[in-house]
C-alpha cells in the first residue's frame, strides 16, 4: 500500500494526527519531563520544596543499596529474556510451520491468556506452586515424594511469574517475522541440497532475527518494571527496583527519590532500546547485499 503525501493544511491529516499527538504530549511526554524536573527538588516534612538541588542524585550515586537492587533487577530481566526467547522461538516456529489446522484456535487461547487480569493469573500461580498446591500434588502422584517443589516466595517463583506474563511478546514478534518470511528462499535452500536443519540455521533463523531481537528487547524493557511477580510470588524476599520505587513514594513519601529511581530505570531501558535499534538497523540491510 502506498502512502499519500499530506501537508499540514489538510484538515484530514490534522484530524487523524492531532488528537492522539496531543494526548501523548500532555499525558506522556510532559509527565516524563516533569519527572526529570522532580528529581532536582527536595522534600521537607513530606512536602515538596521547589528548588534546584542535586541532593537526590548524590544520594543515589553514593548508596550501593540502590545499585544492588538495580543490578538484581537487570539480572532478573536478562534471565527472563533468555527463558522467554527459548520458549517463544520454537512455539512461534511451530505455529507458522506445523499445526496449520488449529492455528487460529491456538492463537485465540494464547491471546486470551495474555489479555486477562494479571493479578488473578498471578494469584493462580500461588495456588499452583503452594506447598499443598497443584504442582506438588502432581509431583507426589508421579512418585517424587511429598512437597518436592518449594519455590513459592523465592526468586524462582518471581521468575516463573515474569516469564508467564512476558513470554507472549517475543512469541508475537517472532511469529510475525516468521510469517512474513519468503517461502521460496527455504525451497531454494532445499533445492540446493541443504538439509532441513541446515536450512533452519542458515536461512530461517538469520531472517527471523529482527523479530527475535525486538521480542527480546521488549521482554527486557518490560521486565524492568515487574512489580506484581516479586510481590505476590517472590514474597518480598528479594525486592526489585519496582518495590524500591513503591517504597519511596508510599512509605517514605520521598517523591524526588522515587522520581529519580524511575528515571534510572527508564534510562537503563532506553539505553538498551537504542543499542538494540542500532544493532538491528545496522545488521539487517547489509544482509541483503551480502555475496552468496
Amino acid at each position, binding site marked *: *500500500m502506498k*502512502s*499519500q503525501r*499530506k501537508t*499540514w493544511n489538510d484538515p*484530514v*491529516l490534522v*484530524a*487523524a*494526527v492531532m488528537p*492522539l*499527538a496531543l*494526548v*501523548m*504530549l500532555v*499525558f*506522556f*511526554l510532559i*509527565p516524563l519531563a*516533569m*519527572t526529570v524536573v522532580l528529581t532536582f527538588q527536595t522534600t521537607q516534612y513530606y512536602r515538596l520544596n521547589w528548588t534546584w538541588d542535586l541532593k537526590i542524585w548524590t544520594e543515589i550515586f553514593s548508596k550501593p543499596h540502590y545499585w544492588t537492587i538495580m543490578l538484581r533487577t537487570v539480572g532478573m530481566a536478562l534471565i527472563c529474556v533468555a527463558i522467554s526467547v527459548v*520458549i517463544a522461538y520454537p512455539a512461534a516456529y*511451530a505455529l507458522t510451520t*506445523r*499445526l496449520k489446522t488449529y492455528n*487460529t484456535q491456538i492463537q*485465540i*487461547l*494464547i491471546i*486470551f491468556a495474555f*489479555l*486477562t*487480569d494479571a*493479578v*488473578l*493469573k*498471578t*494469584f*493462580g*500461580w500461588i*495456588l*499452583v506452586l503452594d506447598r*499443598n*498446591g*497443584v504442582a506438588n500434588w502432581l509431583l507426589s502422584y508421579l512418585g517424587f515424594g511429598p512437597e518436592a517443589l518449594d519455590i513459592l516466595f523465592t526468586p524462582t517463583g518471581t521468575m516463573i511469574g515474569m516469564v*508467564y506474563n512476558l513470554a507472549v511478546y517475543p512469541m508475537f514478534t517472532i511469529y510475525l517475522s516468521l510469517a512474513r518470511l519468503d517461502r521460496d528462499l527455504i525451497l531454494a535452500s532445499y533445492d540446493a541440497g541443504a*538439509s*532441513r536443519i541446515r536450512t533452519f540455521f542458515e536461512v530461517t533463523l538469520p531472517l527471523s532475527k529482527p523479530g527475535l531481537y525486538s521480542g527480546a528487547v*521488549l521482554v527486557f*524493557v*518490560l521486565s524492568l*518494571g515487574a512489580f*506484581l511477580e516479586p510481590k505476590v510470588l517472590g514474597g518480598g524476599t528479594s525486592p526489585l527496583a519496582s518495590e524500591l*520505587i513503591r517504597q519511596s*513514594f508510599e512509605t517514605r513519601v520521598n517523591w524526588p527519590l522515587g*522520581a529519580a529511581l524511575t528515571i534510572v*530505570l*527508564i534510562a537503563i*531501558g532506553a539505553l538498551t*532500546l537504542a543499542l538494540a535499534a542500532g544493532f538491528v538497523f545496522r545488521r539487517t540491510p547489509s544482509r541483503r547485499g551480502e555475496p552468496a
Partner: protein
Amino acid sequence: MMSQRVKNAFVDTALVGTIVLLLIFFYAPIVTLVAFSFTSSRVLTFPIEGFSLEWYGELIAKPDFFPAVINSAIVAAVSTVIATVLGTAGAIAWIRYYFRFRTLFRIVTFAPLLFPQLLLGVVMLLWFSVLGNWLNFSAGLATVIIGHVVYITPFALVIVAVQVYGFDETLEDAARDAGANRWEVFREITFPLLWPGIFSAGIFAFLLSWGNFYVSYSLSGTDRTLPIFVYSGIAVGSSPIYPALATLNFIPALILVGLAEFMRRRALRRQNAAQPLS
C-alpha cells in the same frame, strides 16, 4: 534416508510438543483458579475437597465488590471508546499518510508500548499530583481513564494498522470516481472495510483496561477497580472468593476474544481473496 525421516518425525513431535507444553504453562494458573472456585473448603489446598457454589455467594456479598465492578466497567467502557477512536485515526495516519514529522509521530505514539506499565503509572501520577495541586483535583476514575488511554491506544493502533495495511485503496478511488464526497467515501467504503480491525481493537482495549492493574494502582486514588480489589484482598489473605471472581471474569473474556479474532481473520482472508492478481 530412514534416519532422515526419523529425524524429521522427531523434530515434528518436538515442535508440536512445545505448543502443548506452552498451552499447559499458560493455562496452569487459569484452570487451577476455575477449579478452586468450586471448592467447599475455606483453605486453598489441592486436591479440592468437595463441590460447592458458596464462594460465588460470598463474593457477591462482599460490600466493596459491586462498587469495584461498576468502577471497572466505567473505566473500561470510556477508555475503550477513546483508545479505539484515537488508535484508528492514528493507524490511518501511520500507514496511509506521508507527512512532515511522521517519524516523530510514530515514535511518540508507539513509545508507551515499550514502557513498563508501573513506570508509566508513576510518571503520570507525579504529573497529576503536581497538576492537582495547582488546579485542585485529586486522583480518581478520571485519571485512571487517562492512564488507560495512554497505555492502551498503542495496542489499538497496531491492531487497526494491520487492517489498514491490507486495505485496497482502489475501492476508494472507485467511489470517488462515482461522485462520492470525502465523508461518503469514509462512511461507505473506508469504515466498513476497517471495521473488523476496529472491532477487535475495541475488544482488546476493553479487556486490557478491565484487567489492568499497574496503571490503575498508581492512578486510582481511593477509587477501586476490580484488579485493585483483588490485589488488596490477596495481600490480606487468600480466600476462594478470588478464584470465583476469576471464573466469572474468564468466561466472558474468552468468548469476546474468540469473537473478535474470528471476525478479524475472516475479514483478512476475504481481503486477501479479493486482492487482484498483479
